[in-house]
Every structure is written in structure tokens, then in C-alpha cells.
């Protein structure tokens, strides 16, 4: 199968600042490809280069078989794009928004009614078709935005944090739609901040400081984290982190909900460290409820990789 998106040494400089630094990857047709990274990692700039909004400084790439350097305008006919901000017209009705984007994407006149009905059905908006878009709930708005982005049945779909601010149930429904599109052969390129969403992707690319730092399936990424991980539940999370961060054998400690996740250095003996660290905490007068080895979550992987590559850029 041919690649839906393929980039090689893609680079974008803004003056001295390198926003995207020699990034290479390829996305298969029909794949749901997750794009992760802290703010300022270069995700959005990469997407803008792929969608023809920003010209790359160097490197090459194709989207749907079209060259991003020379065929930017043509690419826009073959992709759908949905930005993180809600960006339909709030003062148009659901149907008017659909009609507008049908016109912009050049959906043939005879197909318009069918495509409109398909979008209304997919987004579950048949009842709301005459309502002003601004009056809809955010979950509905996002589904409508998705519908408007695929009116022309693009082979590649770019979603830039499509579910930010949407409640978990709507988010789940949104991912069902993404899967349905992917099953129909659409390649979905999606950025997200939600780790549980990252698990839904076929493959994940992690970016930090403009560089691609990991690229694999969620399962293999978790296995790839070789540093052992402990989860400590104590009476005082903040002091636990302070104490453990400086302890020998510990690579990193951070708060995870109420618990503290402690990444040990590579090759450390988990059972011995567990006892040693429990003693250390008790010696500081911190009550230890439990301290257990755990399987790393994607978030642990994500944080460990970001830390290893110089930490997140602080705005």
C-alpha cells in the first residue's frame, strides 16, 4: 500500500528558531496516526506544512501523492482539515455551514444533497439542521466541523486537537466517527493532548523541541520504556517528590493524580529499591500507604521521553 503522507527531513525555521527539525515519517493509507507532544513541540507547524498553510524551509514531503512544496493548492482539494478552535460560522445554521463548505470544496451539485444528509446523519444533527451553529453544544459543533471537513470525501484528514474541551462521552462518540472514517479508507492524522485518546491510534509519533523522538504503536511504545516504574501512595505527595527526586537510583519523580510515579534508572533492581525508598520516606516522617511496581502508561512513556530529550519548552 502506498503512503498517504510521507515526509523526509521536513524543517521549518522562523528566524533563528527551528520549529520543526528534520522530521521524517510516513503514514499508511487508512491508518489513524496520532501526533503527540507538549506545547511548542512543533506539532501544529508540521500540520500546517502538510496542509499547505505554511511552506517548509527545507526537506520534502507528499500528501495524498501530491508534493507539499509545489502542489499546495492541489493538496487542499484532497484533504480535510479541522482546527483546534471551533471554526465554523456560528451565525449560520447547520445546513448553511454544510452548504458553504460544499461550495468551497467543489462538491458536485448532484452529490450535495446526499453528502449533506450523510453529514447530518453521521453527526446526529438531523433534528438540529435548521438551528444556528452557535447554539449547539461543543460536542455537536465538533462533529459538525468534522462532517464539514469530509464533505468532499478527502483521502487524508487532518485533525488538530479536535476534542479539546469536549466532555468524555462526546469525545468517545467522536472517536467512533474517526474509526468509521478510517475503516472506509480515510487516513486520519490527529494531534491530541489526551493520553487515553492516544491509545486509540494505530501508531503514535512523539515530538519534542521540533524533533521526532519516538514513532511506534502504543503497545510497543509502552514496552520500549526500559526504566522500571514504581507507584507510591503516601501522606504527602509534594514532599515525597522532593525526597525521591534526589534519592540515588531515581531518574525522575512526578505526581499522577494522588499517587507519585517514580522512574528508576535503567538497570536498577526494582524489589531492592522499593524497600530502600520506603525506608527513606519513613525516615523523613512521611507515611507510606503503598509502593508498588507498575506497568508504564502511555503518559509515563511520554513524560520519560520528553524528559530524556531536554524537557518541554516552557512558554
Amino acid at each position, binding site marked *: 500500500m502506498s503512503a498517504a503522507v510521507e515526509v523526509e527531513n521536513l524543517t521549518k525555521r522562523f528566524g533563528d528558531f527551528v520549529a520543526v527539525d528534520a522530521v521524517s515519517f510516513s503514514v499508511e493509507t487508512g491508518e489513524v496516526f496520532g501526533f503527540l507532544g507538549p506545547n511548542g513541540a512543533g506539532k501544529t507547524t508540521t500540520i500546517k506544512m502538510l496542509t499547505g498553510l505554511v511552506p517548509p524551509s527545507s526537506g520534502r514531503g507528499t500528501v495524498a501523492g501530491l508534493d507539499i512544496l509545489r502542489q499546495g493548492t492541489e493538496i487542499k482539494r484532497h484533504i480535510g482539515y479541522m*482546527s483546534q478552535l471551533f471554526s*465554523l*460560522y456560528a451565525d449560520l445554521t447547520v445546513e448553511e455551514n454544510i452548504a*458553504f463548505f460544499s*461550495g468551497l470544496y*467543489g462538491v458536485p451539485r448532484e452529490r450535495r444533497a446526499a453528502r449533506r444528509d450523510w453529514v447530518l446523519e453521521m453527526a446526529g444533527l438531523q433534528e438540529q439542521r435548521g438551528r444556528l451553529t452557535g447554539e449547539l453544544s461543543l460536542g455537536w459543533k465538533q462533529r459538525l466541523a468534522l462532517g464539514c471537513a469530509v464533505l468532499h470525501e478527502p483521502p487524508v484528514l487532518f485533525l488538530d486537537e479536535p476534542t479539546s474541551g469536549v466532555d468524555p462521552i462526546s469525545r468517545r462518540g467522536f472517536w467512533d466517527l474517526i474509526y468509521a472514517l478510517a475503516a472506509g479508507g480515510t487516513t486520519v492524522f490527529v494531534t491530541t493532548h489526551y493520553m487515553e485518546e492516544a491509545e486509540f491510534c494505530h501508531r503514535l509519533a512523539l515530538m519534542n523541541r521540533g524533533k521526532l523522538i519516538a514513532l511506534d504503536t502504543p503497545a510497543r511504545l509502552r514496552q520500549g520504556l526500559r526504566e522500571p516504574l514504581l507507584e507510591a501512595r503516601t501522606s504527602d505527595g509534594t514532599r515525597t517528590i522532593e525526597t525521591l527526586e534526589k534519592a540515588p537510583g531515581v531518574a525522575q519523580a512526578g505526581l499522577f493524580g494522588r499517587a507519585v510515579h517514580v522512574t528508576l534508572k535503567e538497570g536498577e533492581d526494582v524489589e531492592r529499591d522499593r524497600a530502600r525508598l520506603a525506608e527513606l520516606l519513613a525516615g523523613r516522617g512521611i507515611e507510606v500507604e503503598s509502593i508498588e511496581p507498575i506497568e508504564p502508561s502511555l503518559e509515563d512513556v511520554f513524560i520519560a521521553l520528553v524528559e530524556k530529550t531536554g524537557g518541554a519548552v516552557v512558554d
Partner: protein
Amino acid sequence: MSPTRLLAVARKELLQLRRDPRSLMLAFALPVLLLILFGYAISWDVRDIRAAVLDQDHSASSRDLVDAFRSSGYFTIVRFLARSAETGPLLERGGAQLILVIPPGFERDLGAGRAAPLQAILDGSDANTATIAQGYAEAVVRTWSSRAVLRGRSVVPPVDPETRVWFNEELASRNMIVPGLVAVIMMIIAAMLTSLTIAREWERGTMEQLAATPVSRLEVVLGKLLPYLAIGLIDVIVSSVLGVLLFKVPFRGSAALLMLLSACFLTGALGLGLFISAVARSQVLATQLAMIATFLPTLLLSGFMFSIRTMPAALRAISYLVPARYFLVVTRGIFLKGVGLEVLALQGLLMAVFATTGLGLAVSRFRKELQ
């Protein structure tokens, strides 16, 4: 260029406009309001100047002179004063704009063939009215004194000028205002409405979505322009018809030519508005910029309110850059003189240049790429 995409943008713009009461007011209510306001309330005609008389001569001649003032139609005699001490306070209160002082011995001097002094005191705080009142007063006195010299004898004067005013026979200022207002109204529509439209897309984040679709910048600019062009032309028709019916302004030229040149002028003004909108990126800033860059020069420097010839040299130089200056020549020419392109060729050409420049600016500035 795809007509489908262009029409999609135009239709969307129209739908948004229809749901925005503020823009609708600006588009349709404001022009009518302005027309009525300027047409009725503002008049530069000076009539019924309030005059007071201090007659110290109490003679047949002095009474005859006062009658001449009264019957001229320009003056209303509001008071007769008894003492010269009353003149100051009366002017200060604004009780009169002109005080005619006829000194004692006026008739005696006339009878003796000597120059009879006469005084007119004017309230100069409104310089414009004072100048006009002075002119009228001099004319009345001149006419009266030539009759007085002749003392009833009929003589054929060596030169008898018969003045006749063309194009605006009554010298009515509304005949100047209404055609000028057409230009001002269009500038408001163009600048205010369009300056909002692109800035709004930036503010609401919809520009990003537009940029990711195949729509080109020319399609967006033209698509946004079309509905406003239609509104502008409707406004031209409405204000012209109102001007003719309500204010009896003559319309002597070709309506088709007026529409054609108005369309050119509007295109330029709309393009300028879109350009401002793209530069400003915020609706508030765009509106303010539009006010300063388009509306104010049109109102003040186009020759609509103030005669360009009497402006200081610097302002006069700037006025050459105000497109409305030339459009005003067009509207007044078509309304009042009934002239066609044979006279308005230069202005017509300038309108075409303005349209092209405005559009060009809008398209070049309207960067679709998000940086």
C-alpha cells in the same frame, strides 16, 4: 477562479449580513437617516438674518432704507433700538446678527449731495453667516442709494448686469448636499461594513478553516465584495430617489452612467475597506482605521462640506488623494448639470483606477497563508 466557490463565499456573506442587525442598520437605515439629517437640518443658505435697527435720523429716507432691508427677503427686522448703548448687549446675547445704525443727519446729507455715512455692525462669531450678511447688506444699500441718487428720475444705467445662475438656479445648498451625500454614504458603507468582515474571520478563527480549503484569495475578496457592492448600489438608488422626491433635487444626467461610476467608486472603497480589515485583524481597530482613512477625508476634504479652493495649501494637496473628491464631481455633474462622459472622462478614468487599486490592495494584502 471558480464561480462556485465565489458564489459560496458571497452567499455566506449575505446570510451573515442578514443576521447581523448592526450591519443591516449601517447598510440601510444610516443612509436614509443621513440623507434626511443633512437634507433638512443642515443648510448653508443664509436667509432671514435677524437684524436690528438703530435709527437716529427718524426721517422718511431712513424709514425707506429700513423698508428696503425688510423687503429684500434676506433680513427680518427683529427690533428697533433707542440708544446706541443697546447695540453691544444685543449682539452679545445673539439677539441680532446685524445692527443697522443710521446716524442723525442721514437725510440731510443725502439731500445736500454729500456722502451719507451708514453703519452695519455684524456678529462675527459665525464668520460664515456674517460674511454673507455683509454681502447682502451692501447689495441692499447699493440698490437703494442708486435709487436715492436718481430721486425717481428714470435713467437707463450704462451697465445693467443680469446675472443668472445655472445648474442650481436657486443656489439651494441641498442641491449640493444630496449628490455629495451619495458619495459620503457609499464611503461609509464600504469602509465600515467591509472593514468588519475579514477582521471578524480572524477574530473568530474561521480564517484558519478557510485557509485550509481550496478557496483562493481572489475568490474570497470578490465573494465578500459582491454583496456589499449590491447594497451600495441599492443605497445609491434609494438616496437618489429620496433626494429627487423629498428634496426636489434635479436629476438631469444619465442614471446608467451614475450607476456605472458608482460601481467603480464602490469597488475601490470596498477594496480599501477589505485591505484595512486584513491589516487590522481586529474589528475595533479596523473600524477606527476605516473612519480615519476613508470616512473623515471623504466628509471633510472631498469638497462635500468645505470648499476645496478655500482650504490651506497642505490640505488642498491632500484632497487630491481623496477619491471622493472626483466622485463628487461625478455626482454633482450628473445630478445638476446632466453632463456625460464627454465631460467626466477624467473622473471616470480615475474611478476605474481607484477600483483597480482598491481591489489590488485587498488581494495582495489578504494573505491566506497563516504564518
